[in-house]
């Protein structure tokens, strides 16, 4: 940077050392720069977590929500159901427990609904029209991003209400319908038109390609898998259908004994829903009880609610009789040599046992209904084949979410919808514009060793509250209670703000050469005086959050 270098006077006189150029001593120079936080890099919606937690800390809640909603229109939903990989990679996890990011998101999301805050309106309107098929998190997230850019967006949804799995899959005790409805209403107020009860048939594609400038397919994975040993019988239900009915408050007579087959999160939702409808529930899973694919939290919840989980078990035969369905089962071990993702059960000889069930519910996975599309679009193992930019090989047709990915998380669907919108916008503007800049750079996230923990006195992490199990099974009230405002503040306080400068001035205070100066006109807030900086790196070390790095210099 061009500093005014003061000249050494030609004659012997007295003066100050600030005419000297101690900057020539150094071999490296500090640079203030925003670096990605590990939570941010782990977040499937690319949420700028350190930014909004700082705003919560400053009690600027509406700004925090806007920063949150910039990447995710469903914070109150994801604050409840996201698998939160952010917390797993949070630097504070290596210190005294990860920041309660998910609970904070829940808090801010609920506050926005309570206060009735609305999303920012598009800055300009564009004429181009985009059709989104499927009003699940992927479709709605894509619609949101495109609408923000001013595109005219219509969403077709076959079900009577929007939300996809959020509406018809995830039970109310985890995600109250009013919360979802509130966040969807806000999207509609932005001018997104959602046509419910409108199933889109594959043969309509050509016609709609003419009427719309681009199409995004986000039909989810709505077809439940089945098992050949189970007869077609009204006493055998699939989990998706069962949850959809429960989510519409249908009366479902299950009988006393319900057996749920499957060990994933859907199986837990099914079991806990059946328990709330008054049945005794047993879950049978191929995986052993310690290694169920379901999230630990959900397994614990199910066990507390009196659900029996039998791991390492397989149903071999089903006898139907007046008394119920007789399940001939056997214990199994999973072959550890099997390729990843493939379950290869090995029967334990002599371990046969049997169960009687009034109702069996299968929750062994679901696939997208892509077979009707495969003459129009490439499909591989039930998934739409897409390029990294979410385009299919049909110009203007994009796909994302559960129908194109095996990730199967709400936040992944939201993230994919967002990234697809970015590509659609690029497509619609002829390759130039984009919905927003690529925020997640290729740069490595700030590692824990770059955090100066002296500035962060140990403070324990807090968790959401949980209603007692006896109370829980009585109805579908929400199980988890969100943070109070005091809890939220205390927990936001714990965020290191990895890689994001908060203008604490430590870099300024610890320079022995006064070579760090504040400069409000700069985005990075500070300037390094080239003439004086000796390159000691004290500012780098004393920055509590790794927002200054040392860059080698060659002369």
């Amino acid at each position, binding site marked *: 940077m061009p500093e005014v270098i003061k000249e050494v006077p030609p004659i012997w006189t007295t*003066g*100050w050392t600030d005419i000297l*150029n*101690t900057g020539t001593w150094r071999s490296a120079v500090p640079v203030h720069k925003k670096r990605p936080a590990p939570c941010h890099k782990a977040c499937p919606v690319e949420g700028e977590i350190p930014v909004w937690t700082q705003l919560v800390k400053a009690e600027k809640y509406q700004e925090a929500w806007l920063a949150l909603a910039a990447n995710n229109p469903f914070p109150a939903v994801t604050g409840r159901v996201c698998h939160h990989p952010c917390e797993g990679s949070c630097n504070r996890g290596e210190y005294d427990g990860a920041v309660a990011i998910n609970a904070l998101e829940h808090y801010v999301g609920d506050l926005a609904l309570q206060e009735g805050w609305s999303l920012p309106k598009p800055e300009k309107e564009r004429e181009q029209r985009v059709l989104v098929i499927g009003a699940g998190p992927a479709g709605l997230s894509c619609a949101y991003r495109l609408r923000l850019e001013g595109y005219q967006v219509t969403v077709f949804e076959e079900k009577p209400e929007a939300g996809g799995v959020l509406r018809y899959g995830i039970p109310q005790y985890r995600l109250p319908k009013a919360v979802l409805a509130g966040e969807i209403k806000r999207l509609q107020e932005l001018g997104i038109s959602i046509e419910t009860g409108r199933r889109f048939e594959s043969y309509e594609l050509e016609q709609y390609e003419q009427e719309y400038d681009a199409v995004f397919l986000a039909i989810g994975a709505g077809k439940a898998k089945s098992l050949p040993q189970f007869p077609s019988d009204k006493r055998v239900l699939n989990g998706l259908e069962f949850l959809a009915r429960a989510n519409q408050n249908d009366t479902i007579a299950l009988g006393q004994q319900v057996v749920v087959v499957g060990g994933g999160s859907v199986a837990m939702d099914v079991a806990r829903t059946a328990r709330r409808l008054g049945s005794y529930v047993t879950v049978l899973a191929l995986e052993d009880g310690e290694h169920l694919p379901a999230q630990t939290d959900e397994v614990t919840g199910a066990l507390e609610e009196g659900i029996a989980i039998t791991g390492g078990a397989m149903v071999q035969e089903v006898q139907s009789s007046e008394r119920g369905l007789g399940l001939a089962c056997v214990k199994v071990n999973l072959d550890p040599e099997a390729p990843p993702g493939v379950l290869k059960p090995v029967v334990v000889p002599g371990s046969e046992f049997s169960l009687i069930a009034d109702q069996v519910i299968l929750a062994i996975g679901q696939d997208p209904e892509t077979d009707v599309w495969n003459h129009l679009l490439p499909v591989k193992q039930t998934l739409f084949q897409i390029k990294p930019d979410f385009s299919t090989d049909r110009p203007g047709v994009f796909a994302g979410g559960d129908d194109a990915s095996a990730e199967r998380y709400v936040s992944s669907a939201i993230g994919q919808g967002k990234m697809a919108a970015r590509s659609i916008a690029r497509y619609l503007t002829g390759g130039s514009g984009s919905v927003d800049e690529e925020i997640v750079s290729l740069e490595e996230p700030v590692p824990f060793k770059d955090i100066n923990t*002296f500035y962060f006195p140990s403070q324990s992490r807090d968790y959401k509250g949980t209603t007692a199990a006896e109370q829980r099974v009585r109805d579908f009230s929400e199980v988890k209670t969100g943070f109070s405002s005091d809890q939220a503040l205390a927990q936001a306080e714990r965020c290191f703000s990895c890689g994001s400068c908060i*203008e604490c001035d430590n870099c300024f205070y610890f320079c*022995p050469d006064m070579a760090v100066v504040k400069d409000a006109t700069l985005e990075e807030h500070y300037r390094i005086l080239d003439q004086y900086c000796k390159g000691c790196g004290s500012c*780098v070390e*004393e920055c509590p959050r790794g927002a200054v790095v040392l860059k080698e210099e060659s002369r």
Partner: protein
Amino acid sequence: MGYYNIQEEKVFNSGHAACPGCSEALAIRYIINTLGPDSIGVVPPSCIAIISGPQPLSSMRMPVYQTTLEASAASATGISRALKAKGNDHTNVVVIAGDGGTYDIGFQSLSSAAERNEDFIYVCLDNEGYMNTGAQKSSSTPYLAYTTSTPSGKPTPKKNLAEIMAAHRIPYVATATTGYPEDLARKVARAKELKGTGLRFILVLTPCLDGWGVADHAGPKTSRLAVETGVFPLYEVEYGERYTLNFGSKGTPVQAYLSQQSRYKHLRPEQIQEIQSQVDANWERLRERFSVP
């Protein structure tokens, strides 16, 4: 949203000749920028003299008298009395001297000035050795630390100068260090405020990066470890009686402090244990002096 709030007057200049990352330079920043330009400095031979020079340039925007290594307190006495004779009751007189010039060579003049309760501030920048001349031991060098004149480690413990000065019952004695810049600046401000009461003495631990064998960026961190392990507690004493603790031991094992510095790299585990016992005993003894709040 800062951790520190320090008001500075621009007295200390950039372009000085301290090593990159030097703790003494950082300490000088908070000492003279707190005292302000209406001050006269007295500096004996030491790294501080180098930092304040090189002649004819000065890094300090105030008059500085470079005296002899023995005579800092005597020189300051003369300046302070001359100002008084002239009716000047506002100019601060401040000695900034090293540990060699304070614990050893300048000790008699300091002790007698304290006994007479002369009216000036004396700041000792303690880097635990004669660093400017090549890292020889001083009576401030800690037990078992390597210096070029104690190649197998110093056989005797560090002299406890803060307690010696407190025993003179002067108005103000404080310990400070660069890892706690606001605490340091506050203590300097307090000493300035007490002008007219007599001698005010501040002992500042300033890790010498080269002499101690730590990285250029590690001065403040090393200084904080000295405090958190109880090696160098930060406290104040008024008139040799009223003790106040500012930052004390957090129970961090001394190993954490020692292992950062190559001057201790020859230590055997039992020697580290011995240092730990001494630190614990010193900390316990000091703790008894703090008035119950």
